[in-house]
């Protein structure tokens, strides 16, 4: 911290005193009362050089546009960037806390090299040179001995992983993962299968830039929504899709009705007109019952029963097949309750809701136009059968005519701005390689060695990070594609910004595989490298740690989740503190070291010669912005041909400074650059349109057929690949009794749910509680080292139930890991910790009260412990804990670490052998437990 002492600060400010003349304008001279201020008051405020930078958040996936102020180079305030429509100037507590990331005493400051055993957390300080050489040398060895595919690059929870992917794709491994693989893939699978998108969100982003009849553009602030149903989706607390928070309450004031379906009374439910406390893991059941009600009661001639919009089916294929398959279940009896599948009574039995409520919900959703049915992580993303839920949910939105209509739902993945593909994907997909399979030399593409798609998870479109411990342990067995029959071990793990050892599926398994040794006493995984700003649990297993610049010290791009193409710049607010470096620098350093060590795949022209400055890298990505077709109503650019791809800055497109390529169907304006963004409030916004799926010339639907598919072309192609490769049925499909991926309506039960899956009914008595996780925005993985976020509560999950403690803080500094001599006292009740939310009635029955320490034990014998928060805001029989928030063993988390013994980790209790059959997602929310008082 020396470099930023007050002495220097004051010196700097003295030099720039006049810069803030208006502070001394004497407006306070007007103040009266008992005090008089005068113009000549010597204490009149004079600040140093104040600077505002437009940038964007990367502290969470929402990535709000920010306006960050510095005074003499120190970050002072963080406001929202009012020009970014995504957040329109607003930020939440987490967004406003960013400076505690930058100036965090616990952050990683210098490169470190391990001195103890993996997991022990003993490190010494190293130079960048030494650390980079260390990594490059081991990567070189692994590539020579096992092939580059033996290295996994995990791009982690934060955005802007592109430079690392580029490096590792050029190095030759196709195994580049990222956060999405462990986030909520079952939630995305429905939209992915049906329309090639991923994230269905309500049309709530305001303002949107809309083309007016007279050709001008106008910000539209109006809300068209009439009904919004959130199922297991809690934008107010969990993932703050920024505009959904302010949009939901605004639309509600405008007359929209809001329904929240959630076992817990979430903060979103607080503002709902109706809260339906559903039984965990029964979302698919609710959707199926709704769909049956809608199909059974639909009557095109009765305005009170006109649920299905036949017009919409014109933009789809395969619906009759889907409907027929769905209806074929109606006569079957469910062995759990002996009721016909998907009937209201069946739905009531399964969901724990009243049959009338389900009927009402279905009816309301059917007749209200526009309406939006939205499901989230907890409802779908983290349940074994979330894939069923999201597919049914997508179907419900489409057949009722709510897809991409004003006030309906928008698949944001299909409409957001493109930010390029220079992450090396093209390179790895085109790179021809040879491997010896069963004694024969086989030629294929490097991509064909990708561990998930060609191994256990052929349909996992974002990888299956939760299943990685298995691959670490057993190696990768390629089952499909040209290299079918080839095996390779996992020998290197390069993780950046991710923390699988605490949140990536079952943490015990990660511990086992990262510390596993071979017969000679060497670690089986020869390299674990960890790159981050925060020192998290995965870092404790690393051989080498590189300190990465925090998001306010580096560049990047944000384009996430909006309803229209928007691109904004993550700009450097302050240069990296200590010895942290940005991703482009790290990429170049590692590339150069690999090249110098003889890796011929890595050349200067692709790295350090090409991207001399950090900005060069991001400018290249911006070349493809916005990259969306000129489609929809109102047509974004009536002056240009409909359906053409639009590229370039908004102002050049408006001004007609474009080249139109009729052959490629491209309208090319002046390329977007970081510099352009800086000159335009940090953001580029292109016009909004709706009905973008209807364009004849190629709308936004990105399935192969360019139509909404109820006969899933994607899974059909996967099945074809499986057949061509010898027909090995993926093991998770086998577990649910399928021999191939379903290509139309499919149904399977979730796991560890005694109420919906007969295999687990036997646990009902002994393990009476369903354990689910509830995301609390301010308690997510790395977030907890930010002091301010420990000072606020959340949803009876993140509460100040800490006991009094006197601690020796641990920091990572010049000496490596240092336990400080001085003690700090943490007063009881002064710090939020992860707690176990339990229904107050259940607590009374068990003679438990808020603050009591309990153990949770699952049928597999795993345990975790934490304090009870007795709450009226949760369904009886359900326990909720914030994921990844408790039992944190890294001292880099500050006060949260100090409470590791009394805070729960739900990750310890999840079933490591079950992942969602299609996407390979860990089943974070499927478990039953019993409660034992400690």
């Amino acid at each position, binding site marked *: 911290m020396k470099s930023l002492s007050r002495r220097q600060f004051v010196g700097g400010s003295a030099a720039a005193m006049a810069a803030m003349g208006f502070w001394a304008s004497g407006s306070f001279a007007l103040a009266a009362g008992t005090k008089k201020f005068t113009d000549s008051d010597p204490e009149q405020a004079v600040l140093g050089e104040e600077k505002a930078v437009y940038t964007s958040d990367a502290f969470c996936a929402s990535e709000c546009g920010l306006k960050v102020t510095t005074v003499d180079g120190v970050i002072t305030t963080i406001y929202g960037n009012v020009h970014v429509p995504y957040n329109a100037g607003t930020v939440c507590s987490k967004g406003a806390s960013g400076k505690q990331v930058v100036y965090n005493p616990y952050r990683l400051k210098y490169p470190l090299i391990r001195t103890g055993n993996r997991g022990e957390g003993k490190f010494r300080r190293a130079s960048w040179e030494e650390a980079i050489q260390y990594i490059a040398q081991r990567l070189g060895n692994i590539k020579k001995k096992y092939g580059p595919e033996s290295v996994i690059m995990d791009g982690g929870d934060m955005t802007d992983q592109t430079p690392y992917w580029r490096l590792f794709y050029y190095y030759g491994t196709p195994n580049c993962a990222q956060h999405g693989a462990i986030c909520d893939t079952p939630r995305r699978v429905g939209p992915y299968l049906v329309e090639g998108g991923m994230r269905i969100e309500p049309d709530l982003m305001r303002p949107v830039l809309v083309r007016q009849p007279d050709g001008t553009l106008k910000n539209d602030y109006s809300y068209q929504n009439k009904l919004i149903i959130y199922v297991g989706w809690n934008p107010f607390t969990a993932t703050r899709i920024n505009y959904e928070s302010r949009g939901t309450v605004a639309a509600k004031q405008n007359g929209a009705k809001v329904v929240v379906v959630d076992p817990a009374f979430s903060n979103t439910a607080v503002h709902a007109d109706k809260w339906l406390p559903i039984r965990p893991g029964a979302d698919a059941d609710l959707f199926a019952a709704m769909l049956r009600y809608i199909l059974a009661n639909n009557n095109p001639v009765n305005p009170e029963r006109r649920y299905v919009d036949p017009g919409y089916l014109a933009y789809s294929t395969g619906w009759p097949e889907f409907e027929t398959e769905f209806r074929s279940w109606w006569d079957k009896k469910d062995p759990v309750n002996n009721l016909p599948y998907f009937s209201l009574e069946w739905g009531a039995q399964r969901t724990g809701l009243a049959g009338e409520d389900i009927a009402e919900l279905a009816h309301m959703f059917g007749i209200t136009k526009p309406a939006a049915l939205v499901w989230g992580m907890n409802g779908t993303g983290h349940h074994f059968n979330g894939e069923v839920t999201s597919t049914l949910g997508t179907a419900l939105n489409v057949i009722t005519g709510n897809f991409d209509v004003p006030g309906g739902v928008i698949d944001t993945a299909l409409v957001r701005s493109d930010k390029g593909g220079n992450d090396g994907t093209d390179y790895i997909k085109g790179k021809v390689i040879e491997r010896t399979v069963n004694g024969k030399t086989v030629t294929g593409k490097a991509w064909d060695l990708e561990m998930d798609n060609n191994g256990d998870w052929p349909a996992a479109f974002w990888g299956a990070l939760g299943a990685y411990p298995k691959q670490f342990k057993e190696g990768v067995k390629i089952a499909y594609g040209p290299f079918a029959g080839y095996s390779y071990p996992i020998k290197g793990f390069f993780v950046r910004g991710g923390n699988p050892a605490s949140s990536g599926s079952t943490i015990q398994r990660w511990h086992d595989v990262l510390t596993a040794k071979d017969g000679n006493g060497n670690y089986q995984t020869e390299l674990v490298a960890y790159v981050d700003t925060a020192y998290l649990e995965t870092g404790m297993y690393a051989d080498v740690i590189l300190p990465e610049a925090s998001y306010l010290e580096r560049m990047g791009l944000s384009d996430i989740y909006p309803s229209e193409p928007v691109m904004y710049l993550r700009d450097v607010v302050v240069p990296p503190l200590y010895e942290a470096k940005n991703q482009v620098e790290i990429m170049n350093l590692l590339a150069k070291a690999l090249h110098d060590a003889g890796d011929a795949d890595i050349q200067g022209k692709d790295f350090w010669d090409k991207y001399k400055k950090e900005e060069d890298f991001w400018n290249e990505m911006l070349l493809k912005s916005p990259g969306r077709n000129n489609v929809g109503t109102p047509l974004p650019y009536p002056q240009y041909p409909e359906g053409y791809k639009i590229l370039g800055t908004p102002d050049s497109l408006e001004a007609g400074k474009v080249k139109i390529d009729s052959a490629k169907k491209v309208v090319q304006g002046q390329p977007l650059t970081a510099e352009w963004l800086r000159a335009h409030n940090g953001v580029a916004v292109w016009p909004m349109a709706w009905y973008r799926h209807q364009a004849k010339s190629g709308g936004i639907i990105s399935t192969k057929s360019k139509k909404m598919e109820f006969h899933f072309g994607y899974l059909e192609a996967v099945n074809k690949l499986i057949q061509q490769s010898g027909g090995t049925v993926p093991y998770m499909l086998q577990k649910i009794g399928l021999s191939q991926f379903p290509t139309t309506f499919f149904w399977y039960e979730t796991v560890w749910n005694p109420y919906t899956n007969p295999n687990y009914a036997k646990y009902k008595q002994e393990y009476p509680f369903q354990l689910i996780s509830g995301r609390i925005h301010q308690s997510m993985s790395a977030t907890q080292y930010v002091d301010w976020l420990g000072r*606020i*509560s959340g949803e009876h999950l993140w509460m100040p139930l800490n006991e009094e403690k006197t601690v020796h803080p641990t920091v990572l500094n010049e000496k490596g890991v240092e336990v400080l001599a001085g003690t700090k006292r943490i*007063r009881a009740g002064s710090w939020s910790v992860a707690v176990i939310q339990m229904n107050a009635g259940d607590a009374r029955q068990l003679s438990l009260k808020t603050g009591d320490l309990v153990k949770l034990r699952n049928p597999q014998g795993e345990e975790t412990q934490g304090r009870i928060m007795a709450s009226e805001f949760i369904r009886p029989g359900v326990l909720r804990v914030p994921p990844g928030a408790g039992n944190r063993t890294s001292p880099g988390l500050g006060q949260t670490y100090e409470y590791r013994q009394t805070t729960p980790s739900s990750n310890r209790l999840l079933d490591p052998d079950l992942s969602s059959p299609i996407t390979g997602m860990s089943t974070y929310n499927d478990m039953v437990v019993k409660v034992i008082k400690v």
Partner: protein
Amino acid sequence: MEQMNLADQRGSQVSISPGSRALMVAGAVIWLALFVFGLHGLYDRLAFGSLKTAMDSYIPWGLWVSSYIWFIGLSAGSFLLSTLVYVFKLKQLEKVAPLALVVALITLIMALLSIWFDLGHMGRFYRVYLHPNFRSAMAWMVWLYTAYFVLLIFETYFALRASLVRGRSLPGLAGGISRLLTGGRQQALSEEEVRRDRRKVTILATVGIPLAIAFHGGVGALFATVVARDVWHTAIYPIIFLVGAFLSGGALFTGLIAFFWPKRDDYWRATVRLLGRVTLGLLLLEALLTWAELSVPMWYGVGPEYEELKYMLFGPYGWVFWVVQLGLCTLVPLILLVSGGKSPRATGWAGILIAVTFLSTRLNLVLPGLVTPELAGLQFSYHDGRLIYNYLPSWPEWQLLAFVISVGIALFVFAVKMLPTLTGRDVA
């Protein structure tokens, strides 16, 4: 009034047994320990400001404010006791009245020290004089204390002047101090002068009665006028403060006379018995008021005061009420005063016990008004070690209190040593 040979008196009339010498040594050791312990608290206060206190923004007043009202009550009580002689001409206490004045002065200094240390900016204390806001009950308090302080000094001076002049002949420091205080005066006061001093004392004491009632009832009002605090905001508070002052001041004085009056004669026995009865009466009155204070708001078990008082009685620090306030400060002294009414020793113990444990009563007046959130949910809104509703004084707070007490003891011992008249040692 007969002149005494002061030099003779020390050896002959006050006999110090080996046992009491051992006690004195023990007392000195205890005092020294208290002082050193307290000195560390003083260092913490001066070096770290409020940092080492356990107070927080939701419980912004703690041990120091409580001990301040404890001391100020002792002062007011002692002073009012002295007026029984100087205004109401109660003969029995005539000999002990000057001591009561000195005790009032010392406890006033202790009170002012306590509240001064409680100020965030101790150096800005003068602002209350230069920029007072007379709408503030606290500003009134400070001005009334100042007036009381000046009055006490003069009254004490006039009450002691005759014996001070006599004390000029004392050897050592005591004589020096007497000479210093009496200026150039050589000969003894004339009877006329004594009478004039006596009249001045009577006038000052008479003025002092409303003043003491004003400032101490006013301290109660300082709390009672705060609308925001349900428990405080009651008309009984100023009365409770006053009765508490009488009780604690009277009890302290009873204890002091019982143990520190050198001559264990009939006068001593009669005086202690009288003081004991006064204390007993006040104790019963105090108990009645406490009953009123607690029973009225709690009777039907609803309302904010109920919750706050319930916390006081049955919360984590309920023992302060049950064990200390009710047990040590009420029931035990009551038993001692009733059953041991004829034993000066038992009466003295009762007095000391009440005076010392009366701090618990003061804590229970200050804290219940602060322990529950003024707005529901405040305790879960923003967390900090300084934003919690749970207060237990920190060691440095106890240490600073120890410092103040050690200063008070030192002043008392010094006064008694330097002014033999206070303990009747220059009077026949």
